[in-house]
């Protein structure tokens, strides 16, 4: 067997581990799947009537791309809790003592995260359609949008793996990761355009990488408010640069951290 095929198999075996865990311990999936549906009901349906964003036909058109991104980020964030648990229970030590390359183990794990992320994105989008959201561009652009969402989720998953490997306890990871992601997605353009926010908050929301991704997504799907000035040329590069930067930073750091995981 060639080394490449062997590593591919290592990746498959660890990815399968993550998938089986997701299937047999579904409680880890409940929150990320429920959350977009609840938000959809709360903001899209319940408050949708009183909220109007200038330049968009209905609030759901503005809201749903952001909620999909938020749901994906929270799903990816669960990886931190999982990985911290693996450190705690000695599973990381067990895998590290194997001849299997560390990269294959972590890569396999993020492949299973990617599937969970895709599931969340699908559920969130379906809930969005029920709330009245539509993609106003063509199928190719719609597909490109989902690809962007998955890439973003994958980057957050690697960041979560890094956090999980660095957390002292699973409880710490459980407390920190979702809180950070909720804060990051709230102080952004997910719920409201930053120019409607207080003066001090606006720069934060505008500089937020989540805002960059959401803007790119709205432009792709034709949901960007008219008159915002965002175009393909202005919206795509920041989003892609952010995603790429997170991947380039988080992957080597996570691999390095993995090789130095402390005793459980």
């Amino acid at each position, binding site marked *: *067997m060639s080394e490449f095929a062997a590593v591919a198999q290592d990746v498959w075996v660890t990815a399968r581990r993550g998938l089986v865990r997701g299937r047999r311990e579904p409680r880890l999936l409940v929150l990320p799947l429920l959350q977009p549906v609840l938000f959809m009901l709360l903001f899209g349906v319940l408050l949708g009537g009183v909220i109007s964003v200038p330049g968009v036909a209905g609030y759901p058109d503005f809201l749903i791309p952001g909620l999909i991104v938020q749901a994906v980020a929270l799903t990816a964030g669960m990886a931190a809790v999982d990985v911290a648990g693996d450190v705690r229970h*000695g599973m990381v*030590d067990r895998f590290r003592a194997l001849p299997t390359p560390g990269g294959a183990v972590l890569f396999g794990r993020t492949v299973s995260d990617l599937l969970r992320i895709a599931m969340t994105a699908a559920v969130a989008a379906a809930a969005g359609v029920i709330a009245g959201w539509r993609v106003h561009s063509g199928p190719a652009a719609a597909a490109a949008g989902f690809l962007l969402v998955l890439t973003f989720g994958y980057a957050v998953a690697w960041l979560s793996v890094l956090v999980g490997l660095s957390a002292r306890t699973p409880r710490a990871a459980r407390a920190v990761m979702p809180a950070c992601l909720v804060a990051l997605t709230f102080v952004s353009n997910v719920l409201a355009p930053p120019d409607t926010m207080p003066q001090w908050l606006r720069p934060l929301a505008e500089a937020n990488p989540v805002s960059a991704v959401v803007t790119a997504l709205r432009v792709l799907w034709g949901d960007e408010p008219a008159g915002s000035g965002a175009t393909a040329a202005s919206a795509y590069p920041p989003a892609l640069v952010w995603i790429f930067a997170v991947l380039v930073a988080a992957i080597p750091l996570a691999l390095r951290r993995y090789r130095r995981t402390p*005793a459980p």
Partner: protein
Amino acid sequence: MAAAIVAEGLVKRYGSATALAGLSLSVPEGTVLGLLGPDRAGKTTAVRIMATLLRPDAGRCLVNGVDVLTHPAWARPDIGVCGQRPAVDGFLTGFENLEQLGRLHRLGRRRARARAEELLERFHLSEAAHRRVSCYPAGMRRRLDLACALVAAPAVVLLDEPTAGLDQRSRLGIWDVISERVRDGTTLLLATRHLEEADELADEIVVLDRGHVLARGTPDQLTRQIGGERLQVVLGDRAETQVAEDILNRVCGGQAVVFLDQHLVQAPVVSGAQALIELVRRLDAAGIEPVDIGIHRASLDDVFRKLTGQAATPTLADEEART
């Protein structure tokens, strides 16, 4: 006989705390080394260094002839390791746990499955093979954990407190399994706080405390090193200790030690039985009636207590408090 594990001057510090202060040891192929010490002795640190999981600040370590610091990837296939707590996936079955590790050891699907079946049988887990590990009792989890370390039939197995948190019955079960491996020619390093465990399983023992080696040798050597047999008299009256000390010095050829508060006098002795008869005779002649008299044999327990300044075998209550 070639050495399967060689450690030379292993040093590991965490901040200002020294976990290992220059550990050197050598384990011949097919033998068991007991690494005996209380909590925080440095046992886990030593095991993790040998298992390629931790880099020491100084020192060298060869496992099966491979330097684990410079070529960890080459050393790993020959090493099986169990941590202090069983590292098994609760959401998988026993079979799936072993099969997964077999695949990661690149045995291929068919051999990984065959190996899993074989190990489950050998560790008396066949009946529970297809149950999820989250419902295994502690003893079974431990056995599965040991089986996990043996998936690739490694030449060297490192066990860090393999019976921590188990009741006596499960403990005996684990000992059986370990003895079996040793008969197969596996080299074993067994880190433990339990003297009984080291005594039962180890060919040689290294006593470790706060990162320092306090003593090493076979269980018998260690016992002798600390004093072997002693003649001991407990007196009813404190005033009699002086006379008893004189008598013991004459019988045993000096070196009598008095513990005044306990009314106790003792002295090391070579042929205990002979000396005991002589002692009784002389005490009687001096008109002293001892409360207790006898030959005291130093146990490995005494050795441990003397070396580390603490009780060797924790009580069951200690054990529960820890877990």
